[in-house]
């Protein structure tokens, strides 16, 4: 088990380094750079000599390899540099923006999971074919709703018309309700779809018939036998959906005027703020690796058959 863990950690480090390098190369390949964009900005109205001085001060024209190792070395030491656009250390930007996004993402994911499980079970428990069909068509509806539209609709209805929740200056938890819903609805769709299909699949397996023949109720079979089997592929997808969460956060945060990794990413992309983007890429990669590791470690907990394999 520990050998397995070590190899996974080594793999994770390689992934992180690759993510760092790939993002560095790609950002270098883009036309222009953060210094140019910031200081050629008409708001500053600087002349050619001043711009040349500033480029030299930032080392913007040093050889690529030199900048690569310089940045890598700084990253290894935990120094992410400065945000050219915002004028603050990247670490400060992350410290401010990471917690709200984590909060939003975990709430969003939690609610998405609840929605998905709720829909899947409802569709299986209902006795009416029409209701079942209606519930099963909901995921396709959910996934096709644009996040920004959903957000604006929720704000218009619940905040501006009904006046239930203020968008401006809400309480800490109150303010999370609408963004969480906005984020959760599209994310819940693929989860619900896979869960529904898996439940249908598992229900056709012989052991279900056996369990039913032994006198188990429909609900009992669904909860005790089917759910466990159906949840594994859903878990795999859940790991991958993390990326969607981050992408959804970009839009959700912009619509609701929340600060977070999403709005930080959006601004950084807009201004080619390389230092910020690199830090975000590495952090996202780390989160991806971590989540997928957790998912992998959860498999044997849920499915005893996988425990044996790992034990060797």
């Amino acid at each position, binding site marked *: 088990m520990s050998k397995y863990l070590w190899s996974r950690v080594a793999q994770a480090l390689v992934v992180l380094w690759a993510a760092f390098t790939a993002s560095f190369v790609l950002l270098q390949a*883009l*036309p*222009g*750079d953060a210094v*140019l*964009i910031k*200081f*050629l*900005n*008409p*708001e*500053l*109205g*600087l*002349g*050619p*000599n*001043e*711009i040349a*001085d*500033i480029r030299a*001060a*930032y080392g913007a024209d040093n050889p690529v390899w030199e900048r690569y190792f310089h940045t890598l070395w700084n990253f290894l030491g935990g120094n992410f540099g*400065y*945000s*050219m*656009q*915002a*004028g*603050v*250390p990247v670490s*400060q*930007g992350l410290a*401010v*923006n990471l917690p709200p996004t984590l909060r939003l993402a975990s709430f969003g994911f939690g609610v998405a999971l609840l929605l998905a499980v709720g829909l899947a079970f409802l569709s299986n428990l209902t006795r009416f074919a029409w209701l079942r069909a209606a519930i099963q068509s909901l995921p396709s509806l959910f996934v096709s709703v644009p996040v920004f539209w959903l957000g*604006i609709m929720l*704000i*218009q209805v619940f*905040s*501006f018309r009904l*006046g*239930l*929740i*203020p*968008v*401006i*200056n809400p309480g800490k938890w109150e303010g999370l309700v609408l963004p969480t819903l906005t984020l959760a609805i599209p994310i819940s769709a693929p989860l619900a779809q896979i869960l529904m299909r898996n439940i249908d699949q598992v229900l056709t397996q012989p052991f279900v018939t056996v369990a039913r023949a032994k006198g188990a109720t429909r609900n009992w079979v669904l909860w005790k036998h089917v759910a466990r089997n159906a949840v594994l592929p859903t878990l795999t997808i859940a790991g991958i959906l993390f990326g969607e969460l981050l992408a959804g956060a970009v839009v959700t945060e*912009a*619509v*609701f*005027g*929340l*600060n977070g990794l999403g*709005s*930080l990413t959006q*601004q950084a992309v*807009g*201004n*080619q703020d390389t230092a910020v983007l690199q830090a975000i890429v590495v952090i996202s990669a780390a989160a991806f690796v971590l989540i997928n590791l957790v998912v992998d470690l959860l498999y044997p907990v849920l499915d005893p058959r996988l425990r044996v394999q790992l034990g060797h």
Partner: protein
Amino acid sequence: MALVAACSKTADAPAAAAAANPSAPVTGGTLVYLEQQAHTNLYPPAGGFYPNGGILNQITDKLTYQDPKTLKVEPWIAESWTVNDAVTEYTFKLREGVSFSDGTPLDAAAVAKNFDTFGKGNKELKQPVSEAINNYNHSEVIDARTVKFYFKKPSPGFLQGTSVIGSGLVSLSTLARPFEELGDATKIIGSGPFVVASETLGKELVLAARKDYAWGPSTLAHQGRARLDEIKVIVTPEDSVRIGALVAGQAGFIRQVQAYDEKRVKDQGFAIYAPSTRGVNNSINFRPDNPLVADVRVRQALLHATNTKEIVETLFSPNYPQATSVIAATAAGYLDLSAKLGYDEAKAKQLLDEAGWTVGANGARTKDGQELALRAYEALPQPQNKATLQLVAQQWAKIGVKLNVLTGDAGTTTLDNLDPAKTAVLPTMVGRADPDVIKSQYYPTNRNVLLQKGGVSDKVRSFQDAKLNALLEGIASEVDPAQRLALVGEVQNYLIDQAYVIPIFEEPQAFAGAPWVKDVGYEAVGRPSFYSAWLAAH
């Protein structure tokens, strides 16, 4: 419910006090102000960016105050000043008892350090020079309340330059920080009527009134501390959310209302404020280094093919007056050139014929096998710039000229806009209420929007206009104010005669406010000032 709660949150204190006389200003209360974008670096010379200016204008004071109506420069932190005849030395006598919010005095040494930094930059701390301060040489502290500045050349624009947001005075501790850390508003220590109480980067900024503030511009009716207790600046990027929140009573004041939203806001009984930015108008500039627009007849043809009236009436509102010159009608030295700017399709066609551009089978103008097709990038900060350019493209298509309107990432746009071969046309605007602005806009070593040789771009092959540059240098250094304004007039005429520029409209800064938010002021280029603002009972 939320509406009631939000109102009571902002109105508790004023409501009681105003009961006696509802039109008398009251002190107290919190104003919720919605900004479209997060501020960036708050180094004062970067105050041109609207969100930055909106904050800096509340937390810093300036040496002088420019009356937004008369454009006259009046005393503020400087009680009085003298200028030598050659306009190379300025001596300012400072007001007594002014302090920064960290308790340090705003004295001659602090003022000297501010202008040394803005005038020369600080390489070690990566602080760039200010666009508003030209030809700066050095400062001299004569006594604790007297400071003198020396210039390399006559610098008549300096006095007004001390009144702009970019010359906001900050404490020595702020100036000692590297440029890269000045995006943290809590580190910007000014002497203004408000102080940054707290900040959530990229989301919210709380400005608290300084209770001991007693040095506002003496010409203002309101004196003493700011009337508001607090301003909450909340970044709300989505247009519909800002407007919806204002109408629903969740906010008192918002920045950036598009012309097409104005009616909706007004219909609900809310006010639109659109102070002019009083600088160079929202315009289209040609890059004559590009052979396609090197011929003055081609540029004149395009100038007459542009129907600015249609643009303003289709896309904008009366708050966006149709341009009648290169600079706004409210700018210093303005000359009405509408006679030279008229829309005239027939004349445009004739000019192109004369220039040798003939109409081909598909309706497009060609010459020597080359099509007259130009490219321009949308300028994101300008209101509805893409729609404006697209309408211009339609108008130009009528005379057989193609304009490709592009949208690019920041890097590509920045680089391509420096290359006349790639972008023959550039949309621009810039706000500053001094004739220096026109020099800054067109001079090669400043903004250089026409892309002359000698500027930042290394892609320019040969274009240079010595006559224009001589006129611009004259504006920057002419000692006699009347003569200086005459030069401003000459430059406007020259730019239009050469058809280097197609002015479109006078750009305002559009705000909307609740009826109970009173007396918000606007400085000369349309940035809000909340010093005199107060909240009426509602």
